[in-house]
Every structure is written in structure tokens, then in C-alpha cells.
């Protein structure tokens, strides 16, 4: 089976105080469909930068990424955006819900961007799945952190992504809520056969994934 995600000699370097600063150095790995991969590392190890590059949110200094067989840095920014919209879902530490839209509208958003006809029905079902059937018309600021992350999860899964990128999804939550969120994410991941790329610094959480990738100073370490 063809791999869903492949990083090839991925490097990122920025200018800092007139000096080049290497954030990622020749990172290469492959992820198969349905796998779950935890990217671990201390603060500043380059894990969020790696996630940004894998999802095509940022552009590397060297190397490339193949997402579902497409070299995402050989296409332009808009084409990458469309590819993300069709293949990927995202869950972030800071939830990133649009404050002006209610829970249902936030979940409908990715569907509406692509003109899906049944966005409302699908979003309602997705919110029911994450246990928020009674919170459809609530604005994000009226939801708890856990509830906001559930909405974000429904938004990520509603487009039936082939791959889910999660950046410290429990970072803003207490331990009990965080654990519930992870269970839910893994359950959805398993149920839909979605590939999961999870960035975390939590070893226990990482252990729930099929594979772990340790980063230190921008390099993969054993």
C-alpha cells in the first residue's frame, strides 16, 4: 500500500540576529494509512515546525513532503490549501474556533468552504458524535475548554479526513478532560481509519499511538 505521508530530507532554517538558525535538519520518515504517529520532544525541539511542514502550513528550506502521493511543495499555496481541505483535519492546543460562529457553524465551515450541500446535517451528526448535541447554537466563548476541543474535533472529523494533524490537543485542558479528548480522538481515528499525526511532549499520551518519533534540536533521535 502507498504511504499516506512521507517526509524526505525535510529541513527548516531561519535567520536569527543575522545568523542562520537550524530548526529542523534532514528529517525523513514515512507514515502508512491508518497509522498513528506521536512526535515527541522538549520545547524548542522543532516538533511544531515539523507538524506545520507536514501539513503544508509552512514551506521548508530543504526537502519535501508527499501527502497522499502529492509532492506538496511542488504545487502553489492555493493548491496546497485545497489538498488540505480534502485530505486533512486539524486539532490545535488553542482550539482555534472562529469566535463569531456558533458550535454548529464552526463545524459546518470546512464543508461550506467546499460547497457541500448537506453541511448542516453532517455538522449536526458530528457534534452529536462528540457529545455536544445540546450545544449546537453556543458561541465558543460560552463553552468550556473541553467542549471547545470537542467542537474542534467534530470540525476535524466532519470532512472525513484521511489524515488528522493534532498539535498538543490536551495542552490547554486539565488531565481528566485531556484524557477524555484523547480517547475520543483515538476512537474516531480507529472508527474512520484516519491516519493520526500527534505532536505532544506527554510520553504517556504518546504511548497510546502506534509509533513515536523523538525530536531533539531539530533531528530525529532514537
Amino acid at each position, binding site marked *: 500500500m502507498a504511504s499516506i505521508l512521507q517526509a524526505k530530507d525535510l529541513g527548516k532554517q531561519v535567520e536569527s540576529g543575522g545568523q542562520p538558525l537550524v530548526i529542523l535538519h534532514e528529517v525523513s520518515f514515512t507514515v502508512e494509512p491508518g497509522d498513528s504517529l506521536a512526535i515527541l520532544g522538549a520545547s524548542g525541539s522543532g516538533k511544531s515546525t515539523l507538524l506545520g511542514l507536514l501539513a503544508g*502550513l509552512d514551506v521548508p528550506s530543504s526537502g519535501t513532503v508527499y501527502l497522499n502521493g502529492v509532492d506538496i511543495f511542488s504545487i502553489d499555496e*492555493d493548491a496546497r490549501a*485545497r489538498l488540505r481541505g480534502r485530505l486533512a483535519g486539524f486539532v490545535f492546543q488553542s482550539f*482555534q474556533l472562529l469566535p463569531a460562529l456558533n458550535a454548529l457553524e464552526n463545524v459546518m465551515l470546512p464543508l461550506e*468552504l467546499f460547497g*457541500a450541500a448537506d453541511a448542516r446535517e453532517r455538522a449536526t451528526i458530528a457534534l452529536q458524535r462528540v457529545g455536544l448535541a445540546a450545544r449546537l447554537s453556543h458561541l465558543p466563548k460560552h463553552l468550556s475548554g473541553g467542549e471547545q476541543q470537542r467542537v474542534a474535533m467534530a470540525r476535524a472529523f466532519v470532512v472525513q479526513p484521511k489524515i488528522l494533524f493534532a498539535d498538543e490537543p490536551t495542552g490547554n485542558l486539565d488531565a481528566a478532560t485531556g484524557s477524555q479528548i484523547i480517547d475520543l480522538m483515538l476512537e474516531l481515528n480507529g472508527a474512520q481509519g484516519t491516519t493520526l499525526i500527534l505532536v505532544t511532549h506527554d510520553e504517556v499520551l504518546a504511548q497510546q499511538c502506534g509509533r513515536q518519533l523523538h525530536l531533539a534540536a531539530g533531528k530525529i533521535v532514537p
Partner: protein
Amino acid sequence: MWSAVAFGSREDCAVNTLRLSWLMLRRDWRTGEWRVLLIALVLAVGSISTVGLFANRVGLALQQQATSFLGADLRLVATHPFPPAYRAAALQRGLRVVENATFPSMVVYGQQNVLAKIHAVEEGYPLRGKIHIYDGTDHVAQGIPAPGTLWADKRLLQRMGLQLGNEVVIGELRLRVAARVVRDVDQSIGFASFAPSVLINAADVPASGLIQPGSRISYKILFAGDSAQLDDMRVWLKGQLAVGEKLEDVRDARPEIRTALERAEHFLGLAALTAVVLAGVAMALAASHFIIRHLDTCAMMRCLGATQSQVLRIFMYQFLLLGVLAVLLGGLLGYAAQSVLVQSIESMREAALPPPDWLPLWQAAASGMALLLGFAFLPLWQLKGVSPLRVIRRELGLPPARTSLLYASGAIVLSALFLWQAGSLKLGLTVLAGLVAGLLLFGLLAWLAVHALAWLPLRGSHAFANLARHGRTNALQIVALSLGGMALLLLTFVRADLLESWRGRLPPDAPNHFIVNIQPDQLASIKKFFIQQQLPTPQLFPMVRGRLIAVNDQAISGNDYPETRASRLVEREFNLSWSDHLPTDNTLAQGVWWERGTSSVLSVEEGIAETLGINIGDILTYDVAGSPFSAKVVNLRKVQWDSMQVNFYVITSPDLMKDYSASYLTSFYLPADKAHASDALIKDFPNLLIIDTEAVIEQVRKIMDQIAQTMSAVFLFTLLSGLAVLYAALLATQDERIHQAAILRTLGADSRYLRRLHLTEFAVLGALSGLFAAAGGTLLGWVLAIKVLEIPYHSSALIWLVGVGGGMVTVTLAGWLATRRVARMSPLQVLQSV
């Protein structure tokens, strides 16, 4: 399991983008994000449309009035009868037509003969305006004199001692005097008929035997209808005009009122733009605040797969929807404001002004959309470049903007609006350049002031340091607030003084009568007459009529001047006067007045000099009754044509005129209780033409009153826009203040400390804004007085006190209202609310 998602077509996406825009607009509206932008735009459109609609209605009323002075919309004058094709062509176009003939004839009553001007009119005359007659009662005439009767003016009746009912002879006709004409349609100033006039029915003319070959008859054909029919007729007529036929329309009538109105329109238009500039500032602040608040939204949408253009379209549609809404509301507001204005001005309510055209509303709408484009669309463009990476790296903000481009877009829109409203490139550019220079200067001074305060060892130094840290933002806020304050101070202090001085230009005893055709041998007896009547002795001005035939020895004719006005001026005779002194109400614009005894020099009015391209040093040659003279232009004069005083385009040194026979003219104020004096004057000096200008003066005075009241309404818009700037400025910095407060609270600052910090900052901002507002108000007042209204200006010390004090109190109060909850909230609550 969830089923697979069926993604829609391109069209579905477009529909969804629009739906999403509408949804987000609605949601953002609830959170108040759009409020400032909408309010600012509504005020701008409201302000422009109020002035536009108001000026349009007054202009239309004036046009109607002007048509009544012609008795028609369009008039063709000739020295021969018109071919029947003219009447047929007009009727075919749906126009109303009448033909008149005017000729001089002796009116005989008993032993007396008086030369009169006979107007033979057809049924239907006048097509525009009304004739007021007295036939026992004073009323508007229905129709024209019946065959066998005539209507005569007061001059004829007084000269011949005629009573209503008497019979007079004109040619072979015997006609009964059926009425006295109180006011005819074409008694505009400049109508210099020296003979009394008589109105008869055209049906009587053939029997009079007066129309013979060689008779001096002026034929007139009058047309009235709608503007499309008239335009069509005008074009057709221009192709048909024979020698001796001249087309006249309303543009030729009432120049003095038209001048007053045009000046007022430009002035009001520019005043309206102060509201527009403020609205622009508020919109720019609100738009940049909006954009900063939507960075996350943009990044998230990009992350979810939205393309750059899709993101841009989502926000663009929101701005467009908002623009359309604002234009509609602004238009309604403008319409309502001008209606209230017209209703509140007594003279206008009575005048029953015609309803306005749609044009000013379209112009206001276009201006509103242009403002939105200039101040909001380009900042919006930046959102397109927001990186999706911001979802994980929040420190990523907007891509570096081309600030020069952003400023340039606003400046271009404002420049275009200023040039349009000013009506002249020079005035528009002067006002705009002054405004921009003032803003930059105030901005720099504000920046220096907030930095200087931070260096002073004062209590509350944390607040001063805080102000200095955001020097640029605060300088911008100070400039914006001082613009609002300036409008307020102008409204309260400067406006009343200016208006009083301006109205003072036309004092209650402004001359209301002109006497023309005074002969040199009558000068002494005229002066004596005034003394006898206990009226101030008027200044008598000599006058000869001459035609300009050469400039610098180059012969000229009307064809040398492409501009119609210049061409007409060259073709007609000028009234020339002479004097050793500069007339009291004239001022020198260029050059110096001549010493007594200087010979062969001229003084020219600067307006006509500009029209004809005459400069100091040019040699002008005039032909007076076939005898030419040449003289050098040594100065240009500024003349207040609306002062109702006798004024001349050209004044010569006395030596040039001594050999020509002159007549004299004067103007004087005749109080209502001495109206009989004018009758006595006509009786004693039958050759004089006395022109009553009371109606014209009344009209100019009314226009001034109307403008004064309109100006109040316009400045109200400016004031409201100033408040919008205050609101936008507070909103733009609110998030940062809240964030800072939360950190300070966490570090142990109590609510008293926070309150003092905020209030000190706001008080300083307010005081500096007030100071600049007072400076700006004084400066603008001076410019308006000296440059626009041409009146002296006296500054008031109170403006500084009220400016600084008022600014401090208002901004502190508004700031306190905006931030008072911050001091009471817990740090976590505060941070979560940002």
C-alpha cells in the same frame, strides 16, 4: 460511520462563500465589530448627501425662478418675424410656445406724449413665472390684457397722471388702461429699459398700424417644456439660427444670486468633507482593528483549505454588503436631514422648494463606496497574505504591508472628493494641501509631546511611559480626536462669529435702489433732492459705455476667446467709470492705485482680467462712441459684487474720460417708510431709471440665512464623525489595554492603580487633542474668514480653555466608560475575554 463528503461544484462554493460572508457579517455585527465602520460610512454618506440634496433643491428652485425671469425656459430673440417652422418644430417636440413682439411707440393721453416700450403678447404668456397686477386689488394676473385694453407700469401712470379706466392712444389704437403692472416677469437687474413699459394683446397689433417695414421691432419666441424636449429644441434651433437671431436661456439670468449660491455650495461641500475626513479616519482605525481581530479566523480558514482568493472574497463580500447597507442608510439619513433642514428654515418652507433630483444621492453613494475602497479595501487586501501557520505559531501577524500604498489609496480618494466638492482645482488642492500639512504637523507635534512627557519627572510616569511606548498610535489618536474637537469648536465658537461677520457684509441698510441715466446737469438737483427727502446723499459715479477693441495693440473680437463668457464680454459694451480714488468697498489684488493727476492708466476687476487674460502692464484700447482711447493696466481690483453697491469692471484715470459725455449712476438705501421718495424722484426727474433691487437683496440675504443654518447641520455630521473617531480609537487600543491590565493585575496592581493609570493616559490624550483642536479651529477659522468669506477674523481666548478642558473631560470620561470593567475583572477573566 459517517458517510463520505460530496464536495460541491465551483458555483456551490461561490454561493457558500457569499452565504458564509453574510453569516459572519451577521455574527460579527452582534459582537460590535462592524459598528464603527458602518457608523462612520453612514455619517460620511449622510453628510455628503445632505449638502448635495439641499444645494440641488435650492439650485432647482433658483432655476425655476430664473425661468420665470425669462418668462420661459428658452427664448429666441430676433429683429424679424420667425418662420412658422420654429413654432411647428416646438409643438412637434411637445413644447409650449408663445410669440411676442416688442417695439417703441408714443403713448398719447390728452396733450401728453411719452415714449414707451410696447410688449404685444399672445395668450399663454408668460410660460414661466407670473405677472402681478393691480386692477383694484393686487393679484396674480390670469391671462393677458383683453383686446382693447392695456396694462401699464407705474412709471407711465405717474408720468402721465393716468388712472385705471383712462383711455390712451397708441398708433391707431384706442386702449383702456385696465391694470397697473406691479411686477412683470423680466425685471431682473441689468434690464435697463429707460422707457416705461406697456403690455397689450397681440391681437390688437395689426389694427395699430405700428408694424411697418423699417419699424424697430424685437420679436421673441418663448418655449417651455421638460429638459429633454428643451435640449432637443436647443440643438435644432442652433442649426437653424439666421443672422439677427439670438438664443437666450436661464443661464443668463440673475448672475448675482447664482454667484452667491455657487459660493455657498462649494463652501458647504468643503465643510461636509470635514465629516468625510473624520469618517475616513474612523474607518481606517476600525478596518485595521477588524483585520487584527480576524487574523486567527483567516489563518484557520486557510488551514481548513480555503484559498487566498476565497478568504479575500469572504471578507470582501462582507465589506461590500456593509457598504451597500451604509450607503442606503446614509442616503436615507441625508434625505431626512435635508427635509428637516428645509422644514426648519422658514423662508424655505414658504418657498415650497421642488423635490431634489436623484443625482446627489448617487454622488453620495459613489463617494461612500470610494471611501470604503480607499480606507478599508486595501487594508483588507493584507488578510489575503495571512499564513496558515499562524494556527500553531500565534506570533505570526500580518504580512508586511505597503503602508505607503495604504496611505496613498486613502489620500487619492480624499483628493478626488475635495477636488469635486471645491469645484475648482486651485481651491480643492489648497484646502487639501492645508489639511494634509496640518495633519502631518499635528501628528509630529503629538508624537513629540507624548515622548516629551515621558521624560518629565512627573507623578503617573508609568502612564506617560505607556503613552510614549505607543507613540505612533497615540499620535494618530490625538490627530483624529483633535479633528473631531476642531469641528466642535468651529461649530460653537468660530461659526457664530464668522456668520455674523459674513452677514454683516450685507448690512440691513445695503442699497436697495439704483438710479441710472442721471445727466451731468442734474447732479446738483439730485443731491438737493436727497437732502430735501432727508436721505443720505449718495455717491454719484460717472459712466460711459465703451467696447474693448484691442489688447496690446492687437485687435480682438469675440471669436478670439473660446470661452463663452469671455467671448460675450468682448462683444458687449462695458460700463467704464473714472476716479482718482479706489472705491471704498474695493480692495487692490495686484499693483498700486495711481497718484492724483496720473494720466492714461486703468484699473481692472480681477475676475474679468482672469477671464480675458489681462495682466498688469497690458495696454487696452476701448472704443467709446466711435472714438478710441488706449491706456495701461496698473492694478487689478477685488470687487464684492454681492454688496449691492455700484461697481465697475474698469475704472480709468479722469483724464481719459473728460472729452466723453457721461451719464451718472448711484445706489442708495430707501427705508420702507420713505418709499414715496422714489415716486417723487420719478416725477421730478422723468428721464431717470430707478431700479428697485429690494427683491434681489432679500433673496441674497435669504440664501445667506439658509447657508448659515445648513452649515450647522453639516457641522453636526462633523461632530458625530468626531465621536466615531473617538469610539474607533478607543476600540482599536482596547484589547491591548485589557491585556496589559491583566498582566499588571497578575503582578499585583490593584484596581485603583489601574484606574489611575488609564485615567491619566486618557486625560493626557484628551488634553493634547483639545490643544490641537483649539489650534486647528483657530487656524481654520482664520482661513475661512480671510480666504473664503473675505471678512476680518478675531480669535477668542475661550476656545483654548474649552478645547483643552473639554478634550480632557470628554476623552477621560469615554475612556473610563470603555475600560471601567477591566479594573474590576479577575486577570484570568480579562485574558479570556481578549
